[in-house]
C-alpha cells in the first residue's frame, strides 16, 4: 500500500497549489508514490472522510495558507492529528504572508473595508453574518479570528517550506527527497527544519555587482531610468529585501530587474525579519544630520509594508495589540 498524501489550502491565494502543479511531470511521481487522500483543489473530498481516517495515517500533508478563521483552525488541528509529517507550505503557512498584513487593523475594520470600498457594489450595506436561519435549518460560515496566525502558532509543525509561492524546482526536489525517504534511500532532515531553501540570503544567488553601501536616497524602481542591470539594486537606491531574505529562489526578482520583496522569509537564525532589515537599511544611510536621515527614510513611505510584507504575523511582535490578546 502506498503512503498517503494530503494538501490543504487555508487562508491563501492559491498560488502554492499552482506552484505544485507547475512541477509538471514531477506531479506524476506524487501520484506514483503516494495515495492522494485529500486535496480539495485537485479532487473531491469531504472533511468527514478525513475525520474518519485513523490518527497519523497520512504520511505527508502540505498545508498552505494561514489561520484566519475557525474553519482554518479546525482543519489545521484535524490534519495535524491525522498526519505524520505536517509541512507549513508556502509563506502564508510559514509566516502569514500578505494576508498577515491585516493584523495591522482590528477585524471589524477589515470587514468594514471589504464591504465598503468604492469598487464594492453593496447598496444596502449588507454585511456577512456567521449564522443564518433558513427553512432547512441554521447555516454557518466561518468566524474570523481577531488576528491571523501562521500555522505554527496553532499546531505543531514538522517542516517549513517558505516562498510565495515556493519555487517549483524546490518543490520537485522536496518531492524527490520524500520519495527517497519512503523507499528507504534517504533520511528526513531534523524536525523543525526549513526545507527547499538555500543556506544564505538572496544576495548569495544574486549575480549583481556590489560595493560598500552608501545610500543617499531611497526611490521606487519605476522612478529610476535606466536601472543598471548589473549593479546591486539596493545600491541604486531601491529598498531591496534581498540581504535579509533566505536564499532558494535563485534571486528571481533581482535577476529579472526588480527588487526582492522578501517572500522567502528570514534567513536561518534570524529572530525578526523586519527588525533585521530596517537595521540594515538604516546602517547604510549616508547622512550627517537628523534632517537628512528623515529625508532619506521618507523615501520608504510604508516601512511596515516594506520590511514586514510577508513576515508580520510571524514577526517577534506578531502584530498589533489585538493580536496579542488571545486570537
Amino acid at each position, binding site marked *: 500500500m502506498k503512503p498517503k498524501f494530503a494538501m490543504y489550502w487555508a487562508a491563501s491565494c492559491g498560488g502554492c497549489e499552482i506552484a505544485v502543479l507547475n512541477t509538471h511531470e514531477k506531479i506524476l511521481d506524487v501520484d506514483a508514490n503516494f495515495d492522494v487522500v485529500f486535496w480539495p483543489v485537485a479532487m473531491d473530498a469531504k472533511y468527514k472522510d478525513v475525520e474518519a481516517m485513523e490518527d497519523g495515517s497520512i504520511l505527508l500533508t502540505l498545508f498552505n495558507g494561514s489561520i484566519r478563521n475557525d474553519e482554518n483552525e479546525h482543519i489545521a488541528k484535524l490534519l495535524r492529528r491525522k498526519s505524520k509529517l505536517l509541512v507549513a507550505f508556502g509563506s502564508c503557512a510559514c509566516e502569514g504572508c500578505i494576508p498577515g498584513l491585516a493584523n495591522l487593523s482590528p477585524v471589524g475594520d477589515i470587514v468594514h473595508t471589504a464591504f465598503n470600498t468604492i469598487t464594492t457594489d453593496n447598496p444596502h450595506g449588507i454585511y456577512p453574518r456567521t449564522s443564518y436561519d433558513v427553512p432547512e435549518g441554521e447555516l454557518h460560515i466561518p468566524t474570523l479570528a481577531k488576528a491571523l496566525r501562521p500555522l505554527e502558532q496553532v499546531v505543531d509543525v514538522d517542516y517549513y517550506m517558505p516562498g510565495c509561492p515556493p519555487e517549483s524546482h524546490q518543490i520537485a526536489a522536496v518531492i524527490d527527497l520524500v520519495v527517497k525517504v519512503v523507499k528507504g534511500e534517504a533520511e528526513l532532515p531534523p524536525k523543525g527544519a526549513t526545507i527547499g531553501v538555500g543556506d544564505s*540570503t538572496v544576495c548569495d544567488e544574486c549575480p549583481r555587482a556590489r560595493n560598500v553601501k552608501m545610500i543617499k536616497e531611497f526611490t521606487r524602481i519605476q522612478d529610476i531610468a535606466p536601472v543598471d542591470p548589473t549593479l546591486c539594486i539596493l545600491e541604486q537606491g531601491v529598498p531591496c529585501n*534581498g*540581504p*535579509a531574505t533566505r536564499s532558494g529562489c535563485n534571486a528571481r526578482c533581482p535577476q529579472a530587474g526588480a527588487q526582492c520583496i522578501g517572500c522567502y522569509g528570514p*534567513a536561518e537564525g*534570524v529572530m525578526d525579519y523586519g527588525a*533585521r532589515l530596517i537595521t*540594515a537599511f538604516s546602517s*547604510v544611510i549616508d547622512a550627517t544630520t537628523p534632517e537628512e536621515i528623515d529625508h532619506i527614510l521618507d523615501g520608504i513611505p510604508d516601512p511596515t509594508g516594506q520590511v514586514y510584507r510577508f513576515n508580520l504575523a510571524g514577526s517577534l511582535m506578531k502584530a498589533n495589540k489585538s493580536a496579542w490578546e488571545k486570537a
Partner: protein
Amino acid sequence: MSDQKQERVGVYVCHCGTNIAGTVDVVDVANWAAEKLKHQGVIIAREYKFMCSSLGQELIEKDIKELGLTRVVVAACSPHLHEKTFRTAAKNAGLNPYLVELASIREQVSWVHTDKVVATAKSKAVVSGAVSRVIENRALDEIKVPINPNTLIVGGGVAGIQSALEIANAGFHVYLVEREPSIGGHMAQFDKTFPTLDCSACILTPRMVEAGTHPNITLLTWSEVTNVAGYVGNFHVTIKKKARFVNEELCTGCGICQEKCPKKVIDDVYEAGLGYRKTVYTPFAQAVPNFPVMDKENCTYFIKGTCKACEKFCPTNAIDFAQQDQMLNIDVGNIILATGYDLFDARRVSNYGYGRLPNVFTSLEFERLSNAAGPTSGNIVLRDGKTMPKSVGIIHCVGSRDKNFNNYCSTICCMQGLKFAHLVHERTGATVYNFYIDMRTAYKAYDEFYQRVLEEGTLFVRGKVAEVTDAARNDREKGKLIIQCEDTLAGKQRRIPVDMVILSSGLQPRKDAKEVGKLFGISCSMDGWFTEKHPKLDPVATMTEGIYIVGCAQGPKDIPSSVAQGAAASARVLDKILQKEVSLEPIKASINKEACSGCRICNGLCPFNAIAFIADDMVSDINPALCQGCGTCVAACPAGAISGTGFSDAQIMAQIDGLLLKNLEIGNY
C-alpha cells in the same frame, strides 16, 4: 535546556551598606532566587553587606570550590565598577571569569526607585534575567596582544609638553602633534602666571626647547591627526603634516625670510588680533621649532604669482613653494589628548560691548597687552595704542556661571582677574575695580594673592555686571565706559565710569571637540569637555582603553593642575608600556561564512576597520585582532550571519525571558 547537564548557579545579593539594602529587601531577593530559580540550577543564594569586600569575594570563591558552582550571578552595582573584581574572584577559584554576570540592582534599581516593594520586585526580575543569561554564557579566554611602546600626544600646550617629557625621559618614544606652527599653547601667550607672578615665557620656554630637542620626541607641528584605527597597544594613526613651504632639513631658523617678507597681516591667533605678523612667520621669537610657516591664504606669491622675496633672501634655499601636505602613518600603543580650550567668545555677551566698544578687551587681549614681548611691549594702553588708562574695570565670570552661556565655573577667571588687577596697578597706577559674583581662590597661595591685591587698593564690587555702555548720563561719565552693576553688598545700583574694561572670559571646549572625540572614540560631557573614566578615581583615563585626556581638554583648570594631569597620564602610559602586553576582552564579532551572502551592508560600518570583503569567496570577514566587540555589525547584518561573543542571541533572549519572569514556568525552559 533539558538535554543539557544543568549548571550549578550561585546568586550573591549585595547590600552595599544601605545603598541597595535601604531600598531593596535584599534578604527577600536572595530567598526568592533560591526558591523560584532553583529549577534553573540556582543551588545557593546568599546576601552579604559588602560583596566587593575581601570577605564577600571569599564567600564566592569558597562556594565555587566547595559547591562546585559553574555559574555566578552577583546582584550588586554596575558592571563598570566591580565586574572585574568578581571575575577575578571567580578566576582565583578556578572558574572561567566570563561565567560571572553582574546584575545591577544599585544603579538600575535602588538608586532610581523609592518604593521598596516595587524596587524589590524589580530586583528579582533583574536577578532572574542575569541567571537566565549566565546559563547561556560560554567560557572565554582573554586575548593577549603586545603593546607598541610609542605614544602619541595630541596638543603641545603645557599639559602635552609635560606628558611628552615624562615619557621621553623614561626612555620611550613620543610623537607630539601640534596644530599650530609652534608648541607652547596658551601659556606661551601669557605674561605672568598667578599667584607667583612668574614670567610665563621664562618658565615655559625651557620646557619647550627640551621637548623640541629631546631625542625621544618627534615633534610634528603644523600637523593634525586625521584618522585613528586600532585599539589599546596597537593604534594606527594618520597625521596630516600641512605644507610649511619651508624645508625643515635646510632651514636654520635665522628669521631672514620673516624680516624680508613685505606683507603684514593681523595675527588673530598668537597676538589675539592686537598685533601683526608677516605671511611667512613663526608665531613668536621663542617658537619651537623655529622653522617658519607660510600663510598660503595671504602670501603675495600664492595670490599673484610674484614676490618670492623670502626665497630670494633665504641663505639656505629652504623656501619651497612646491611643498605638498604630507600624510604620515604611525603606530602607537597609547594616545594622550591635550587639546586644550578655546576662549569664550565675549561678543556673545552683547551687553558688555566687546567688539562694539573699542576699549573693552578680552582676557587674552590683555595678556598680550601686558606682555613685554607683545605688540605694545608690555605697555597697558587703550585701543588707540598710546593712552594709559586712569581707571580700569575687570569683569569676572564672562560666559561662565551664566545660564545663557555656560553653567560651569571656568576655575581660572577669578585668579586671572586678580592677576590683571595687580598688573594694571603696578604698571599704570590706575584705579582698578573688580566685579565678581563670588571670589573663588582655592588652592595653594591663591587666597594670599587675593589678600595682596586687596591691600594694593583694588576695589571690589560684588555683583553681576548688567551692562557696559558709552552712553553718558552726566559729565562725570562723558567719554568713559560706564559699568552698570548691582552692588549686592552695598545693596544698590551703581554706575562706575572707567577708561578700560577687561572681560575675564571663561574657557570653552574646543569648537571641534566633538569631532576630535569621535575621531579618537571618546565622548564629551553635555558641556563639551572630554569625559574621564571616573570623575574622582580615574580623571585622566577615558572609557576607551589606551586614550587619556589631560589639561583643559578634560575641563577648565589652571597651569599646575594641567601639568599634574600631564604627568599623571604619562604614569598611566608608562605602566601600560612596561606591562609589554595587554589583555583584551575576548568579546569579538565573527561571521558565519556559510550564512554570509556578501551583501556588504556591514563593510562600511566598522569603526575599527576590522571588516574586509573577500571578493574570491564573496563573503565578508572580520579581523579578530582589530575587532573591539562594539556590536555594530552584529546588529546591522540582515542575514543574522554575524554574532558577538558574550552577546549572543541566545544570551540576550534568555535574559529578556528572565526579566519577564517567563523562566518561572517550569518546563518552558
